[in-house]
């Protein structure tokens, strides 16, 4: 297997649920078995990614993010990234099986767009938590690292919001860890490009594609950025930092 497909296979194992054994065509199993979409799906694609459930109800992030937005964001936007990613990977695998290099290259932008969308949103849902459960501020190692870098949490947030607010078009604002230097960094990314392509480990991402806030905040992106800190799951961010630092 190529390096790329090995990497995909590794990632696929991390994300996919346990694989059910695929019966051979000649098996004595019940005739209807291939009409089972689960089996048929796995027979054609071993690399299916799935839409993760939200860790809370659609209305749980109100009033900061409305249930309408959460439902669309999860069931339409994120789900589309997952479906389109799976479709692109199937085409990629088919091209690779034929050693059709041009066919493989043709799928790369779709894999980056949709795979990036899946990676980013999967992190995003865990970075948020209902207002009542949010700790309100970072603690421990994370708090220390933020203060070292920006002087205070408030200064960090205002710098983050300025940079993220200024993103032209669609993109994300990130707090990331530079593993080489061991330092935290604010870094913005365009479109759905994952932070990993900038060499940083993602800790906290804020989606500023218009679909993330438009129904509620319209063009007032700064208002959305001001409000979202009320529902940031600092515990999750700290867990990610701990994991990345180990």
């Amino acid at each position, binding site marked *: 297997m190529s390096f790329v497909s090995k990497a995909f296979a590794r990632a696929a194992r991390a994300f996919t649920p346990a694989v059910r054994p695929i019966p051979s065509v000649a098996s004595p199993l019940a005739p209807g078995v291939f009409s089972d979409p689960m089996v048929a799906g796995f027979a054609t694609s071993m690399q299916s990614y799935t839409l993760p459930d939200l860790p809370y109800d659609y209305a749980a992030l109100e009033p900061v993010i409305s249930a309408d937005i959460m439902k669309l964001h999860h069931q339409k936007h994120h789900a589309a990234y997952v479906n389109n990613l799976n479709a692109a990977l199937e085409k990629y695998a088919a091209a690779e099986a034929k050693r059709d290099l041009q066919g493989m290259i043709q799928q790369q932008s779709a894999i980056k767009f949709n795979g990036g969308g899946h990676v980013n949103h999967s992190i995003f849902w865990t970075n948020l938590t209902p207002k009542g459960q949010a700790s309100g501020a970072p603690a421990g190692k994370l708090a220390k690292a933020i203060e070292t870098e920006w002087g205070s949490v408030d200064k960090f947030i205002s710098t983050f919001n300025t940079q993220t607010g200024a993103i032209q078009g669609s993109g994300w604002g990130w707090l990331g860890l530079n593993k080489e230097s061991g330092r935290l960094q604010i870094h913005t990314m365009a479109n759905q490009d994952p932070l990993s392509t900038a060499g940083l480990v993602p800790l906290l991402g804020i989606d500023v594609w*218009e679909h993330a806030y438009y129904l509620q905040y319209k063009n007032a992106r700064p208002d959305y950025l001001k409000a979202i800190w009320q529902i940031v799951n600092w515990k999750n961010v700290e867990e990610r930092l701990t994991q990345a630092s180990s």
Partner: protein
Amino acid sequence: SFIRPSLITFSIFRICRSMSFVLPDLPYAKDALAPHISEETLNFHYGAHHRTYVTNLNNLVKDTPNQDKSLEEIIRTASPGPLFNNAAQVWNHTFYWNSLAPNAGGEPQGAIRDKIIENFGSFETFKQEFSKKATGHFASGWAWLVLNSETKKVEIVDTHDAGTVLTDPKYHPLLTCDVWEHAYYIDYRNARAKYLDAWWSLVNWKFAEHNLHAVYELKRRKS
């Protein structure tokens, strides 16, 4: 007609160079494109987004050499960054409002129709390709119908974020479709393909025809 007043304001953004840029009037009332594009959308898209680009542009050129340049000059000379982004978005949106009209849509007639059929085989093929380009553009951007002065053909081009065909001298813009989410989210949520259906019901073929003739006239004068 829905073209002439808007083209006058479109081509002369400022009365004289020392004045700041002004948001041109919409060529029609805010509810004129309903139900395809709602009044609410126009209130935000024109009244907030487009207006903000104009405000930002004025702030960025104030007391700089750029304040004496025309909008097109700024777009063609600015390096990537806020000045280019705001200037280009001012221009793009004005071109977009003119690309739409009430009681328009459907199929073109005249020279633009002939050109489309000549280069795409049929109007249906062109329509499918344009919709595919516009719907398939990932993230924010614009889909354009242009006349390519090198190939002498009408072509479909997409640009990203604030990108505009104005920066490519071989492209003469005929029509544009805004595919930033703010263009369609209020009316169609994530369903960009449905918004494209609405765009086809509003497309201002008279504007496209006018733009095509303007290019021919320019070439006639040069030759």
